[in-house]
C-alpha cells in the first residue's frame, strides 16, 4: 500500500508527488489521460520577456523527476468513486481499488460549455480540444475557423492555432443568453480584455489601455468599436459581432453572425455568413471538483476562483482527515501556481506522516505560492486573492465547528 494516492498527473499532482517522495513517502498517481501532464500538455505561449512557455517540455521534466524518485504513475485509469474505509481512503478505478491514508485530489479544471445552435455538428469543439489536437496530437483541426468566446484563454489558443498554420478568421461573442451571461456583452468583454492589455505586443494597445481607465471611455470604445474588428495580439477580435447559429449539414460549413449593440443585442439587418470548416467554443474554465464532492468535502461558491471549490487551508488540506487538494480544483490560475500549490500539498502530507525533516520547507513553499501568484503575468480574475482569503476563512470556520 502506498502512503499517498494522487488523482491527476497534471502540474499540481506531479509537483505534489515529487515533494512527498523527496521526503521519503511512497506515492502513486492515477490519471485518466494516456500520458502525464494534464493541462500542461499543449500550453505554448511567449512570455513578456520573450521566453516560450512550453507545457509539453514542463510536463516531461516533472514526469521524469517523479519517476526518478520512484513515484508510480498509472495513466489511462479513471477514478469513479472515493470512500472512507476505517482510517483510510479507498479509490475505485477502472483498474481496481486502491487505499491510502493520505489522498490528494488534483483533477484540475474543465471547460464550461456554451450552447450555440448547431454546436453538435462535427467540426465544432471546445477551444481546449483544438489546443490538444494541435500541439499534442499535432493534427490541424481545419483550414479556416471561427472562435466563439473572447477571453484570455481563447485569444492565447487562437494564436497557438495560427502558429501551427491553422487560419482563425474571427474571434466573436456567443449569442446573448442566460448561459453566456457576461460573455455575450461587448462592454463586459472590453473590461476583461483591458486587464490583460499590458501584455499586448502592440504599444498602441498598451498605451490605449491606460487611457481607458474610466468606465465612460470604455463605453465609448465599445460604441465605436470598428466593424472590421481590431487586431489585438495580432488576432482578429470582433467585440461587436456575435454568433447566431453554426450551420452545416454533415459538418460545419460556417457561422451565421450579426452585429450587436454594446449590450449584446443583435442589430436587425446585419446578419452575415462566415464560411468555416471548424468552430471553437470558449466558455472559460471551472474547477473539476466532483471527486471532492463524492468524498464528502464541504464547498464554497467563489466566482473569482471559477465556481465551486472544496474548502481547504493554506496547507492545501481539506476539513476531511487525510484529504488534500491542489491546482485548478482550488481555483483557476496558471500552471505555475498549480505547481507551487502541489509542492505545498506534498510537503503537508509529509508533515502529517511525521516524515518532514525540516518544517521551514513547508513555510517557504507557502510563501512561494503567494510570490508566484503576485508575479503572474496573467490574472485570470481580478479578485483571486480575496477569493482565496474567503475560502481559507470558511475552512477555518468549518474546522472550528
Amino acid at each position, binding site marked *: 500500500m502506498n502512503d499517498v494516492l494522487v488523482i491527476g498527473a497534471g502540474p499540481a499532482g506531479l509537483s505534489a508527488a515529487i515533494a512527498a517522495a523527496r521526503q521519503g513517502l511512497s506515492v502513486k498517481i492515477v490519471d485518466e489521460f494516456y500520458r502525464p501532464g494534464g493541462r500542461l500538455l499543449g500550453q505554448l505561449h511567449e512570455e513578456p520577456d520573450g521566453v516560450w512557455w512550453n507545457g509539453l517540455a514542463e510536463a516531461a521534466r516533472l514526469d521524469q523527476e517523479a519517476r526518478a524518485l520512484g513515484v508510480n504513475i498509472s495513466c489511462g485509469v479513471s477514478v469513479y468513486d472515493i470512500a472512507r474505509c476505517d482510517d483510510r481512503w479507498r479509490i475505485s478505478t477502472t483498474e481496481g481499488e486502491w487505499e491510502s491514508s493520505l489522498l490528494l485530489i488534483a483533477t484540475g479544471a*474543465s471547460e464550461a460549455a456554451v450552447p450555440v445552435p448547431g454546436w453538435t455538428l462535427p467540426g465544432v469543439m*471546445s477551444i481546449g*480540444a483544438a489546443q490538444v489536437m494541435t500541439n499534442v496530437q*499535432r*493534427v490541424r483541426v481545419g483550414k479556416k475557423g471561427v472562435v466563439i468566446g473572447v477571453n484570455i484563454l481563447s485569444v492565447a489558443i487562437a494564436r497557438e492555432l495560427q502558429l501551427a498554420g491553422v487560419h482563425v478568421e474571427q474571434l466573436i461573442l456567443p449569442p446573448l443568453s442566460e448561459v453566456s451571461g457576461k460573455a455575450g456583452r461587448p462592454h463586459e468583454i472590453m473590461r476583461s480584455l483591458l486587464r490583460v492589455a499590458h501584455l499586448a505586443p502592440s504599444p498602441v494597445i498598451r498605451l490605449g489601455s491606460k487611457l481607458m481607465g474610466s468606465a465612460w471611455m470604455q463605453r465609448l470604445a465599445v460604441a465605436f468599436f470598428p466593424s472590421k474588428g481590431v487586431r489585438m495580439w495580432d488576432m482578429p477580435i470582433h467585440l461587436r459581432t456575435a454568433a447566431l447559429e453554426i450551420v452545416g449539414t454533415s459538418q460545419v460549413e460556417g457561422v451565421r453572425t450579426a452585429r450587436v449593440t454594446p449590450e449584446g443585442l443583435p442589430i436587425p439587418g446585419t446578419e452575415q455568413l462566415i464560411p468555416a470548416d471548424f468552430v471553437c467554443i470558449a466558455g472559460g474554465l471551472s474547477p473539476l471538483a466532483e471527486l471532492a464532492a463524492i468524498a464528502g468535502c464541504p464547498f464554497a461558491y467563489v466566482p473569482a476562483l471559477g465556481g465551486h471549490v472544496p474548502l481547504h487551508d493554506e496547507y492545501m488540506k481539506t476539513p476531511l482527515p487525510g484529504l488534500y487538494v491542489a491546482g485548478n480544483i482550488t481555483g483557476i490560475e496558471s500552471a505555475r501556481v498549480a505547481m507551487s500549490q502541489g509542492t505545498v500539498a506534498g510537503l503537508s502530507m509529509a508533515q502529517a506522516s511525521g516524515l518532514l525533516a525540516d518544517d521551514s520547507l513547508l513555510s517557504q513553499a507557502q510563501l512561494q505560492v503567494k510570490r508566484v501568484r503576485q508575479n503572474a503575468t496573467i490574472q485570470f480574475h481580478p479578485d483571486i486573492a480575496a477569493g482565496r482569503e474567503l475560502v481559507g476563512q470558511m475552512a477555518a470556520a468549518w474546522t472550528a465547528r
Partner: protein
Amino acid sequence: MSQRIFHHPVLGSMEERTALQFQFNGAVYTAYEGETIAGALLAAGVRTLRVHEETGAPRGIYCNIGHCYECRVHVDGIPTVRACMTLVTEGMCVTAGSVLPTPLKKGGHAK
C-alpha cells in the same frame, strides 16, 4: 488528405514514428504511434465518429480530453470507448455505433 503538423516553428519536427494500420467502419486507415483514434481519423479528414443513437445526427469530438463522451465509439466490440483518450494500436477495429430503436417513444423507429 493528411492534416498532420510534421513541422512546428516552436515545438520542432516530429521524430520518426511507427505507422499502424487500423479499421474504422470497415475502411483501413494509417495512424502513427502516439495518436489517438480521434487524432488519426481527423488527420485523414474523418470528423464524424458516431451518430446520435436516437436521431442519427452526426457527432464528432467536442472536448478532446475525456469529459464529454461525445466521441464514444466501439473498439474491438467494446462500446462507449472515448476516441479522444484511446491510442490506436495495430489492427484495432473501430466502429461508429448506430441508431438504436426507441420502441416506447411515440413516432419512434420501432416497427
